[in-house]
């Protein structure tokens, strides 16, 4: 599948934004985070910025963005519609949360924060399910896919939270969370790649043509000598060699490096810790960008069978 830059950016940016919102709403009442309203407001602002930028980027992918509101109507059957509804609804408690922080209504802040956290989790789950529900794409139509979106959203959100809270003077807790979530993410990615490497396409060309009785089927002539939208969209292929390099870059940038930086920050604290955690947040985002690009590039669609066999 073609890794469209707008979708790759959308899922990474809004995933991280919702992750940040989730942890902020959930952890702030526990006292593990800096309690100054300025801290919570900075995190909230950053998360809404990322979410909004991602949602706007996703509309660049549409042929008719001015009709995007119509996408809220089919929540009964469509995960994309559910995602849109959940994303919009989550703005309500998030803005309420911000209002409560500014006006110092601490009870409301806790309640709205928790509701926003719930909305964030639901939205990212819907994003994952859009892809996981597509039967023609074997690499996506798998129970591990949507939990992966959730976990990596939570992980990148935590990386952002740790960076901001280090600036606010709290290092230990969030930094250790990065290590835990990073380990979980690492295991998940390794498991995912193990699964997709063993997976064949969702069907064979023989069953796609109804010619199974004749034996092996292979393409001879395509319908046209030039390409088409279908081929650009579903015929995208990445060389195994390149994918292997990118997987290593993803593991290094997205997981190994930030975990080491967080361990370092937890150990030494102070100004160096702020620097280390800022760097960790950046490498996590870079690593997840590579991860998301690969998630598209390595996915194969049954329609491509008619062309590539």
């Amino acid at each position: 599948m073609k890794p469209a830059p707008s979708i790759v950016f959308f899922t990474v940016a809004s995933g991280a934004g919702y992750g940040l919102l989730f942890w902020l709403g959930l952890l702030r009442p526990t006292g593990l985070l800096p309690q100054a309203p300025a801290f919570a407001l900075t995190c909230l602002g950053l998360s809404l910025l990322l979410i909004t930028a991602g949602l706007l980027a996703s509309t660049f992918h549409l042929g008719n963005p001015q009709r995007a509101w119509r996408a809220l109507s089919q929540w009964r059957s469509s995960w994309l519609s559910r995602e849109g509804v959940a994303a919009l609804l989550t703005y309500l408690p998030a803005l309420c949360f911000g209002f409560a922080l500014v006006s110092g209504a601490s009870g409301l802040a806790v309640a709205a924060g928790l509701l926003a956290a719930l909305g964030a989790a639901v939205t990212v789950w819907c994003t994952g399910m859009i892809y996981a529900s597509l039967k023609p794409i074997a690499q996506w139509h798998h129970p591990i896919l949507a939990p992966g979106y959730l976990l990596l959203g939570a992980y990148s959100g935590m990386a952002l939270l740790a960076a901001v809270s280090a600036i606010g003077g709290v290092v230990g807790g969030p930094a250790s969370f990065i290590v835990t979530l990073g380990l979980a993410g690492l295991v998940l990615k390794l498991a995912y790649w193990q699964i997709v490497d063993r997976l064949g396409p969702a069907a064979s060309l023989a069953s796609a043509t109804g010619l199974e009785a004749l034996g092996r089927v292979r393409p001879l002539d395509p319908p046209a000598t030039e390409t088409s939208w279908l081929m650009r969209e579903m015929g995208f292929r990445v060389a195994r060699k390149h994918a292997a390099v990118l997987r290593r870059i993803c593991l290094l940038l997205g997981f190994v490096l930030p975990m080491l930086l967080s361990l370092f920050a937890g150990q030494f604290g102070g100004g160096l810790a702020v620097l280390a955690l800022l760097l960790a947040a950046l490498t996590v985002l870079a690593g997840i960008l590579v991860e998301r690009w690969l998630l598209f590039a390595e996915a194969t669609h049954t329609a491509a069978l008619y062309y590539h066999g």
Partner: protein
Amino acid sequence: MTCLPDRPPGAPALGLVIDLDTCVGCQACATSCKQWNASGHSGPLPDLHPYSAGAEGVWFNRVHSFEAGEGAAGRTVHFPRSCLHCETPDCVTVCPTGASYKRAEDGIVLVNHDACIGCGLCAWACPYGAREMDEVAGVMKKCTLCVDRIYNETIPEALRQPACVLACPTKARHFGDLADPQSAVSQLVADRGGQALMPDLGYRPVNRYLPPRQRQAESQPIEDQPTPLDIKNPLLRWMGRVLTR
């Protein structure tokens, strides 16, 4: 509404039956489809760079050629590919806007181009690659089963058939009601072992493909068979050769 409709019992399932035995891959169905639909329900069907390198465009029907089987048993199979008007297609249910829909009355799957936002998700959800984006209008397009011909009372009754069916010079395409076991198309499917494509994915396609017929055992081209001129006796053969010089 992108939930699938409750199809009334006995409602027809209109579709195509395509004979892979007689299809010669001439592309007549593809070009006549393009011609009719360019100005029909889902028109226009844009072409990008039509007169230069990189020419491409929207087609509802594309004809592939495949090689199937090995050695002497192997054969070339021409394979027209268009929407199969599935009974339980995810292309409809994934649509966030309600633009994609399946008609309760005859099962035809269509797109409402005034509501489509061009997100492309329905094309991802179609295993058969049957949907194509009109990148000029930014909306999804697909085979309409020539809904604007088959019920069209302004054309003679004999022509109320999909354009591709009428154009086929070898009569490899048949249109009809596949829900009715007595219909000509259903009979054809029963007689010839018509196949549903990728049935495991659970979309329950309506269209069927008739696999190529078995070759006659030992069938040899007539030219290779002995004729009265193949004279066994060497003397007579020599005489024959001398006399025919």
